């Protein structure tokens, strides 16, 4: 890997995000148009159909594939491609956009992440199975597999997870486009019905519909769009074995996060993540996923998340605020959109436009997705020039 290949060469000059939620009255088209046109306006694109030279899409459950985006935006006569990479789908679509610009092939590209899971008639992902080995267990069932061993080894428990849910519920109340806007207490979280031990209802992200978009251009062209552009410093994707089949797995971490973090920290030259990163959006499909991410991303030592949760390190006013917009927990989780939504939040934070949830003076921001069994992780670092 050439660690300097893309560093600070690509600028984000416009971003958009539709309101996430159970958007019963909206088609994917509606959400894609809302997100993309907000991004066009944000970037000051006068003629997007002329200026955008390629489109990179990410969706986990698209009904029409690339045409879903091309038709919605009438983006024809240019490349439109789509990636699928579990919950890292949005981050991966963004990554291809970055490469397309960094290579010099295109000046300006559009990235669109979206998903419409709420048209499937189930609360949460479908549990239908056709094999005998792939248990009819659910994502909550998969992501909870680190709980017993982690709790046993480091003495953490459901209360620590509950505090993460309380934090993200609070942050979500401050984000206009979030799905849920309701404060909860630790007791609420502990008393909620169990989904898959140790996860109660409030330990689980709100699955939702949504779309988010970004306009990327070369750094030298960025000034032509806006002064407060944001640079892509590092981006990485890593795959690890299914933790339920991996003979080496210790159930104290999620390996793909550690792997992807190593890639981006090498690219960005980061050695002390807690000091050098000022705000982070991490994948909190379940509260334990966020807890493990603190450690796997090197924000704190393995086993110490509990203390940092207690001391407020990752709260809005803490040393390294995490999930400032409420995270997947309350902002919502339309799989393909989530990675792009996180970059949207980091972009707003770096520009100082995050309103009531604004973190003080951040210049470097990280976003993180992990998905599948989980096997796939994407991490992206954006920064002010």
């Amino acid at each position, binding site marked *: 890997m050439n660690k300097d290949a893309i560093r600070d060469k690509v600028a984000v000059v416009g971003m958009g995000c539709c309101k996430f939620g159970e958007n019963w009255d909206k088609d994917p088209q509606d959400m894609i148009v809302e997100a993309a046109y907000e991004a066009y306006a944000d970037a000051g694109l006068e003629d997007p159909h002329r200026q955008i030279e390629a489109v990179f899409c990410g969706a986990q459950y698209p009904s029409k594939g690339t045409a879903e985006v091309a038709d919605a935006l009438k983006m024809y006569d240019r490349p439109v491609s789509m990636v699928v990479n579990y919950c890292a789908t949005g981050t991966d679509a963004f990554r291809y956009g970055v490469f397309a610009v960094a290579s010099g092939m295109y000046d300006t590209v559009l990235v669109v992440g979206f998903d419409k899971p709420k048209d499937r008639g189930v609360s949460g992902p479908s549990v239908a199975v056709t094999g005998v080995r792939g248990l009819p*267990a*659910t994502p*909550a069932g998969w992501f909870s*597999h*680190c709980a017993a061993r982690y709790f046993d080894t480091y003495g953490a428990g459901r209360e620590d997870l509950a505090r993460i849910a309380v934090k993200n519920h609070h942050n979500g109340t401050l984000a206009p486009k979030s799905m849920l806007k309701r404060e909860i207490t630790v007791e609420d979280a502990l008393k909620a019905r169990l*989904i*898959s031990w140790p996860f109660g209802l409030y330990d689980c992200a709100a699955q939702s519909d949504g779309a988010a978009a970004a306009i990327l251009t070369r750094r030298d062209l960025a000034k032509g769009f806006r002064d407060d552009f944001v640079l892509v410093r590092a981006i990485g994707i890593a795959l690890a074995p299914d933790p339920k089949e991996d003979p080496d*797995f210790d*159930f104290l971490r999620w390996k793909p996060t550690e792997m992807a973090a190593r890639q981006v920290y090498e690219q960005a030259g980061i050695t002390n993540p807690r000091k050098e990163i000022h705000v982070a959006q991490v994948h909190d499909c379940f509260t334990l996923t966020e807890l493990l991410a603190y450690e796997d991303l090197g924000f704190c030592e393995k086993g110490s998340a509990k203390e940092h949760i207690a001391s407020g390190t990752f709260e809005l006013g803490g040393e390294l605020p995490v999930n400032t917009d409420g995270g997947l927990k309350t902002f919502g989780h339309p799989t393909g959109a989530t990675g792009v939504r996180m970059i949207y939040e980091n972009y707003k934070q770096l520009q100082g436009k995050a309103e009531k949830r604004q973190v003080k003076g951040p210049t470097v921001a990280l976003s993180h997705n992990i998905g599948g069994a989980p096997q796939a992780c994407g991490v992206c670092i954006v920064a002010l020039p």
Partner: protein
Amino acid sequence: MAGIISYGAYVPYLRLPLAAIAGGKRTEGGPEKSVANYDEDALTMAVAAAVDCLRGHDRSSVDGVIFASTSFAFKEKQGATIVAKALDLRRDVLTSDVGDSLRAGTGALRAALDAVRAGSARRVLVVVGDVRMASPRSGLEANLGDAAAAFLVGAEDAAATVEAFHGVSDEMIDVWRTEGDPFVHAWEDRFVVDHGYRTNVREAVRGLLAKLDRKPADFTRLVLYGPDARSHAALAKELGFDAAKQLQDALFGRVGNAGAASVPLQLAAALEMAKAGDTILVAAYGDGADALALRVEAPISGLGDRRGVRWHLERRGEMPNYDMFIRFRQLLSTENDRRAGAGISATKHFRDRDYEISLHAQKCRKCGQVQYPHQRVCFKCFARDEFDHVRLSDRVGTLKSFTFDNFAGSPNPPLVATVTDVDGARLYLQMTDANPKEVRLDLPVELVFRKIHDAGGTPNYFWKCTPVRDAQGERTR
């Protein structure tokens, strides 16, 4: 002389108190019946009994499998081949299903004996399992229980030799079940007992005694089919046996009438208590009757550890109510219907048979890592296609992780999903026959063949894990 080399038994973990059928509670020591869990059927129970029977025996020495039942899940497609594959037997094994009669178990035993005597096979495994259903809340339903037994039959080294056999065939409509009907029906019981059961068993037993020139007192034990406790004891007496001393417990009120498996289960229990020199008369009923005489031989004392009937009777978990029974038998529609869905891909099943039915893992020849499921490239050293197959189904594993999933559509939530380490391989397995309270990290578990779902309308089998227990239900080993 040909006979039974080894035996095994299986009684499911769950018991339904008969009082619960009428909505009442179980009284301590009150009558109950054994009931298959929602993931069990005649075939999975037969496999469990066969595993018990084959403990300490080289599975590659088995030349044939005869599977007897009146409750085959498939109407067309052999059960014995699935049993043979689950047991990881040789490919050139003889397989056959014997069904449709309460006498199927003794019929299979006779066929196996004939095969080894004729020399067409050296060792034949006879497995008998039954999960019969009668109309909900009928008297017959309370009478039925679920169980299985297995016998390894061979020409040499028999722990019990078969001295003689006598059978009669008789045509009457006494107990029956027709295509498409899930429930067994019976004609009025006095007619069935007098003109079916008593008449036929008497004829078979007297015929056998005449062949051998023996009288009832010459036998140590009588293993006798019984439609109910009263008729059972009455017929033993009528035949000239001492019910108190000679009659084998037919397990009414504990297991119930286990159909084709009833006599085989009692025979396994009789062998469990037998010593060399004992003689056992076995009499089964159904569309006529079978009688056979066994002599217990010296190898009986050399048979290794097995669970047999006693262990399974002591290991029990109580079903809390009748609703659960009805739900488990799919007599009540639920939101998560386990029959729903497209079903498994037959081609995928075909490719995965060794891994999913025989539960083979692969061991890397280069680095020794055992891995599951099937890989082309080693997880650890990346060697390509350098694997040997290893059987995991008879190994003890340990829980690396677990969760209790309330959303997985289990008929008995929460579904206990585990990652289990078996000889270094990681298996994603459901846990069954367990109380969530006993689940903990590093818990030793054994592997059991179960029905995962009925998607597509077929029973779809795979392995699950269950806590290793001793007879008292304690976790050991």
